[in-house]
Every structure is written in C-alpha cells, then in structure tokens.
C-alpha cells in the first residue's frame, strides 16, 4: 500500500491529506504562529502597519490589574461551576441508571439545553432572572427573588453559575451514564454478596472504576467554562459594573473594542497557557488514579 519513491510518497500523501493539511495549516498553525508574532507588535487593527515593540505588551499585561482580576474571577467561576456541574451530573446519572422505565426520556430531557447555543440560552435566562423570578418573589414574598439577580454583582455571579450548571450538567450526565453502564455487573454483585451496603458498593467499587469518566468530564467542564464567552455576552454582558466580565470577554474587548491587538493577543496566549496547564495536569493526575477491573 505504501509507495517506495519520494515522488510516489508525496503524491499519495497529498492525494489524501492535502485538503486537510491546507485547511489545518492555514487556519490553526499559521494564525497561531502569527499570533505569537502579533504579541510583539503594536498593531492597531487598521491597515497592516505594525512596529515591533519587544516585550512591551507582556509588560503591559503584567501591569494590567483588571486583566488579572478578571482571570481570578474566571478561576473562581470555573472552580464553583465545575464542582457543581459534576456533582449534579453524577447524581443524575446515578439515578438514571437504576433501570426505571422513563430513564431514556429523562436523560433526553436533561440534555436539551446542550442543543442550543450559549447566546440563546443566555437570553432565555435573562428573561427568567429579570422578569419572571422577581414576580414570583413579590407574589410569594421571597425577598431573595424580589430584585433581579442580574442587577447586583454577587447575585449576578451566582446567576451565571446556575445557568452554566444547568447547561452542562445534562451533557456530563450522559458521560457518567456511560461510565455507570460500563462497570461490570459481576463486580458490584460480588461486593453486595460480600456484605457491602449500596453506598459502599458505589464508593469502593463503582467510583474507582469510573475514574476515566471523571477525567473526561473534568477536562471538558474545565476547558469549556474557562473559555466561556457566548453565555457571558448574552446573560450579563459582563455587568453589572463589570462584575461578571470573564477572561475571554476581557480579551475580546481589549482587542476589538480598545483596538489593542498586541496586548489582547498576549492575554489570549496567557489564558491559553493557564487553561492548557490546568487541563493537562488534571488529566495526568486522573490517569494515574485509574484502576483495572
């Protein structure tokens, strides 16, 4: 099947991988390298005139307190959301693998938010938080809901977390369901016969065997929540008073609103390095905890 000559090899390779490589190189590799170059320039977004400025952009970034504040805020949002997403998803998956008749219907229902983009989900919830919940709060006299959650910095943060958990828990639930289904029945039965309670079976047999599912879900939820933009834009637009402006939105505005593309790209690279480091460390640690059945 392999060609022997260099010309034959090249032709064979290009015949099959040519289009893929053109797209991949033009859209990922070149922009990535060019992006690194941009961080050393003062490009203002208009025309092609740029001056090399050395590490000036990186120095600006390190002195830009607002960026670090937004990165810290994002980190808090990611930690809270990821923990809640995975707890909710795991419990849903646990309940939905116990063999009830309606379980396929229920799984499909909890997954529904994932069919819809962040922009539309954000608008739907904006209506719920600003129009619906205050009416419920005033009618039933619940002070917590009387004011729109999106008008106060603290409640806006939690509103954002709630919508994120609502959105992704159904997705992660499906992965945990696959994990539960993949645990061999004879092992859990053997543990029950040996006198384990239901909780002990879950804790000492099922959960250790589901480490791969946890690794996948944590990786997916960390990378997605870290890079959140659409939902941020349509639900809170960073407000009130920039209290929910996450890192991705900060980078976007630095580049496209303030026209400081070099600084924006330097921040995008830093964001990328932080996310990649967290996601890969987490995956590496998780892989070491895997056990064989």
């Amino acid at each position: 099947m392999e060609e022997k000559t260099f010309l034959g090899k090249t032709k064979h390779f290009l015949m099959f991988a040519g289009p893929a490589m053109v797209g991949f190189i033009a859209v990922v590799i070149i922009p990535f390298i060019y992006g690194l170059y941009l961080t050393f320039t003062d490009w203002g977004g208009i025309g092609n005139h740029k001056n090399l400025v050395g590490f000036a952009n990186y120095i600006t970034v390190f002195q830009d307190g607002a960026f670090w504040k937004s990165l810290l805020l994002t980190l808090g949002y990611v930690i809270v959301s990821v923990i809640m997403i995975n707890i909710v998803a795991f419990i849903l998956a646990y309940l939905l693998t116990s063999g009830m008749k309606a379980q396929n219907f229920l799984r499909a229902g909890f997954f529904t938010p994932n069919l819809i983009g962040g922009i539309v989900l954000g608008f739907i919830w904006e209506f719920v938080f600003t129009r619906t919940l205050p009416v419920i709060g005033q009618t039933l006299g619940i002070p917590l809901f009387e004011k729109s959650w999106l008008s106060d910095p603290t409640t806006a943060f939690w509103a954002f977390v709630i919508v994120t958990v609502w959105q992704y828990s159904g997705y992660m639930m499906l992965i945990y369901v696959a994990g539960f289904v993949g645990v061999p029945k004879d092992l859990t039965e053997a543990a029950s016969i040996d006198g384990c309670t239901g909780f002990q079976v879950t804790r000492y047999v099922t959960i250790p065997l589901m480490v791969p599912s946890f690794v996948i879900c944590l990786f997916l939820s960390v990378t997605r929540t870290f890079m959140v933009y659409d939902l941020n834009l349509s639900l809170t637009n960073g407000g009130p008073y920039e209290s929910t402006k996450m890192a991705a939105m900060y980078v976007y505005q630095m580049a496209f609103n303030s026209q400081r593309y070099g600084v924006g790209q330097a921040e995008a690279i830093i964001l990328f390095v932080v996310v990649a480091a967290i996601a890969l460390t987490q995956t590496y640690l998780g892989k070491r905890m895997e056990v064989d059945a």
Partner: protein
Amino acid sequence: MSKSVIGGTKARVGHIVKLVVLFILLIAYMFPFFMVLINSFKRKVSIVRNPLSLIDTQGFYFDNYPEAFESMRFPLSFMNSFLITVISMIIIVLFAAMAAYVFVRTKYLASRISFGMMLAAMIIPFQALMIPLVSIYGNTLNLLNNRATLIFLNFGFGMGLAVFMYHGAIKSGVPISLEEAALLDGCNKYQTFFRVVFPLLKTMTSTLVVLDVLWLWNDYLMPSLILTKRDLFTLPLSTYRFYGTYTSDLGLIMAALVMTVTPVIILYLFLQRHIIAGVVSGAVKS
C-alpha cells in the same frame, strides 16, 4: 417470605420517590423554555404585568410571530445557517476521513508529523486564534463578509478532532485485508477508500456529523467576527442583533427565541437516539 414482600414494597416506594424527584427536577430544568414559550403568545403589557400567566388576558396572541419572522429575516438567516453548517460539515467529515486514512496506513514522515501536530493543536482554544485570524483573513487578505471564508475557517478548525477520531476508528475497525483484496481486484487508491474504507466508518461518521452540526449551528463568536453584513447573518447572529434592537419589545423577542430554537428541537425529536449516542461516543473517545 414476609421479609421479601416488605423489601419489595420498600424498593417500590423508593423507586416512586426517585421518579417523582427526577420529574420535579426535569420540570425545573424545562421551566425557562416553558416561560419563553408561553410568553411568546402574549402582548407586551401582559408579559410585564404577569409573565407567569399561561395566556394573555385577551386570549392567545399570535402577532408576535409574523412580526419577529419578518424583522429578524428568519428565512434568510435560516438559509445562511443551513448552508454554512451543511457545507462545513460535509467537507470536514470527508477530508478528515481521507487524511486519517493516510495517517494510519502509511509510515511516511509527513504523516507522522502531520498527525502529531493535529493532536497537539487540539488543545488550542478559538480565543487564542481569533485575533490573528481577523488580522490575516480580514486586514491582509480582505476576505471578511463572505460565507466561503467562514466555511473554510470552520473546516480548518474542525479538522483536528475529526482526524483524531477517524484515526482511532480506522486503526481499530477497518481490517487491512479488505483493502488489499480491493487493490488486488483492480481498485485504485481512491476507489478502495470510497468503496471499502469509508462505508465501514459509518458509525464514526454519524458521531462526527452530530458533534459538528451542534457546534456549527450554534456557533456565535467565529461567525460574528467574519460576517458583519446583515444579509449574511446566521441564526445566532440575527438573534443577537434582534435582541439588541427590540430590547423592550418582549413579545417579539420571545417569539424570535422560540423560532431560533425550534429547528434544533424538531431535529432532536426525530434523531434523539443518534444525537445522544454521538455525543457520548464523541466525548468518550476524545
């Protein structure tokens, strides 16, 4: 005997409690959708006065729909979304399968380097590429406001995951003896691929179609940077624009949101099993 009966009753009660809890939770999950749906059939005054009432004080009010349909130019945005999603998806799936095939079946240096680069690049988020992409395709090449540009960017950006997943599927699911037989029977390399290999990748293809269609149909950030002319807007773009323009016209907005969501929900009703299977196998394999 009596013990097992008691155990049976207990288990049944537990089962019913579980079911009730889950259904209450599902209703809570669906509450936002339900709110938007009922309020899309009301006049603005009724929405503001009581968003919880099931129907308008003057009965069902349908006028929001035709008005929103017209002002957000729904058919045009729908067609833009449809074309961009379908064409991007087809070229991603086709060319990724071909590339993965040559990566698996040859030991060429180019194959190994290319596959390694694609794997490594999968961790790069779109946000790290958006500024240089706008600079290259906008300022240097002047290709913004063109559906083909967006399709090409989707194509390049979607390649990594698709090649990675086909790579695994070919390695584990396509017996090399079949290809050798086809070559002996006089098929050339393309015929072998399209008649023997590609049909065997059906399951992976449907997984990728699901993942890519959900991503492409709902994508906002990349299209918003490439397409700024209203005639080219996809559904998420025109929804966003519409929301900004009619902020206070709640009834219209509710109708617009319902119309944006409906196509995907209809698809979900018919292809639910495939969509869920696709999402699960996509996540587990990557």
